[in-house]
């Protein structure tokens, strides 16, 4: 069976982002970009399923600018078989991404889509659930553990009170949480090999998807700052201050 892994190019998680002084957005020029960390976990899980012989082909797909091809190459170097770039310079919201992915799913007919639970730029946590809705497929979100069987998949999910396991009929969508696995680093030979793997290109227009945003961003601002307080010299002083000055004990 075939597996689809959507990946997003985002500002690297180590970068301290800066808000543009005119409030028009976040400074993205000359900032290090990487694959969304949750998507790395998704690629790793997909590749492991292939290595276990449960999946025959892993197709990575990305929606984004020309440079998103680099993100796809990273997925290919980790072990995906081929890539599809849906090229656009527009800001594409989760709903539109889900619509694009639905078209790709219809073309590729995977039995399983594994993707990150959220992208660390807009922190929306929507696309997987939306894709499942549009396809009428079941969803196993925030996956902690997956177990793929013939025609079904069991997904243990990270929920507020602990863990919950659901059984889903295939085809299905899985979104990854942090503890699903630890993604591998691509080796140099695999990075070289990835350069020769096929990477197709299409566009939202060619797929017939309108990506016009539904949310109007009016302003982007720095969060209200929090000033560093005082250093106390001893535990007794700390408890005293919490009691008398802060009034929280």
């Amino acid at each position, binding site marked *: 069976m075939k597996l689809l892994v959507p990946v997003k190019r985002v500002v690297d998680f180590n970068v301290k982002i800066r808000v543009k002084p005119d409030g028009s957005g976040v400074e993205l020029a000359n900032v290090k970009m990487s694959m969304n960390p949750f998507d790395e976990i998704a690629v790793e899980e997909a590749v492991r399923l292939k290595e276990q012989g449960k999946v025959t082909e892993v197709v990575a797909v990305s929606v984004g600018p020309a440079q998103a091809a680099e993100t796809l190459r990273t997925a290919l170097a980790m072990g995906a078989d081929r890539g599809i770039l849906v090229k656009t310079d527009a800001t594409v*919201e989760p709903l539109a991404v889900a619509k694009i992915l639905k078209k790709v799913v219809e073309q590729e007919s995977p039995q399983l889509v594994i993707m990150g639970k959220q992208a660390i730029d807009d*922190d929306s946590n929507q696309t997987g*659930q939306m894709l499942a809705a549009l396809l009428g497929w079941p969803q196993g979100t925030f996956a902690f553990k997956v177990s793929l069987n013939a025609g079904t998949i*069991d997904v243990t999910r*990270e929920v507020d009170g*602990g863990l*919950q396991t659901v059984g889903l009929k295939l085809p299905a969508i899985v979104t990854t949480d*942090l503890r699903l696995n630890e993604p591998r680093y691509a080796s140099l030979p695999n990075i070289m090999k990835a350069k020769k793997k096929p990477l197709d290109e299409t566009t939202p227009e060619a797929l017939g998807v309108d990506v016009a945003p539904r949310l109007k961003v009016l302003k982007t601002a720095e969060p209200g700052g929090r000033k560093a307080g005082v250093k106390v010299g001893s535990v007794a002083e700390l408890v005293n201050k919490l009691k008398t000055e802060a009034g929280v004990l």
Partner: protein
Amino acid sequence: MTTLLIAEHDNAHLKDATNKALSAAAALGAPVHVLVAGANAKAAADAAAKLSGVEKVLLADNAAYQHQLAEPLAALIVSLAGPYDAIVAPATTTAKNVLPRVAALLDVMQVSDITKVVSADTFERPIYAGNAIQTVQATDGKKVITVRTASFPAAAEGGSAPVESVAPAADPQVSTFKGEEIAVSDRPELTSAKIIISGGRSLGSAENFAKYIEPIADKLGAAMGASRAAVDAGYAPNDWQVGQTGKVVAPDLYIAVGISGAIQHLAGMKDSKVIVAINKDEEAPIFQVADYGLVGDLFTILPELQEELTKAGR
């Protein structure tokens, strides 16, 4: 103009997240109906009916909704969505799972994790782990919104709304509940606790969490939390994680022990009223947001803290 609030509950009890999301729902300016979808969930519906500002409670009582699975629950919400201008839910793992599914079925772009209602269609929400705040205007006819509960006060009791039964929607029958491991604890829940003590990787083991953090949590009646590093290392369960992708909390007092303060962790706790940091590295970024910092070895400081709290009558 009416708003539908999706209640967070465990069938027997309404969760505090519902009260907080109700404050956000009420701020939209329209009457609020509350949907309680569950199995034998009459008690939760009755609790919702008592909340101040609720006009009506809809109770969908059916085995299909017992475990809040996304597929049947989304189908139910979509079947009820017609007359509502906005569908609102607290940003718990339940609603984060279900609501985008509802939004897509309604062809609406969801506004996730709002921290402020500017007007009925304009909201503030954090992006980049809270390092920027976006003001967005939703242009869709219907609004689908999840609410960051730490940013809103809990609505109080004081109402007596009618509870109306609603019919279940057809279950898509593509998913089944297989089991759960839910920690049972007498402690307050992380997201509603007044005091939280969290530990980082420097605790070194699950045993040390029990030995050093737990007695202080007991003394303070506090919830226990952890950094991602501590959870990844297996020192604390995943549902303790505070941060960008874990739980976002805003207690009166947050005590961070051996947590350096990565931006992803700060995103989950920097709206706490008072922050205390205990860390041996005086350059740790956690001190930049802490009201009170104490530099030193946590294995010496925590037993002392326990003693001082006893002296202080806790």
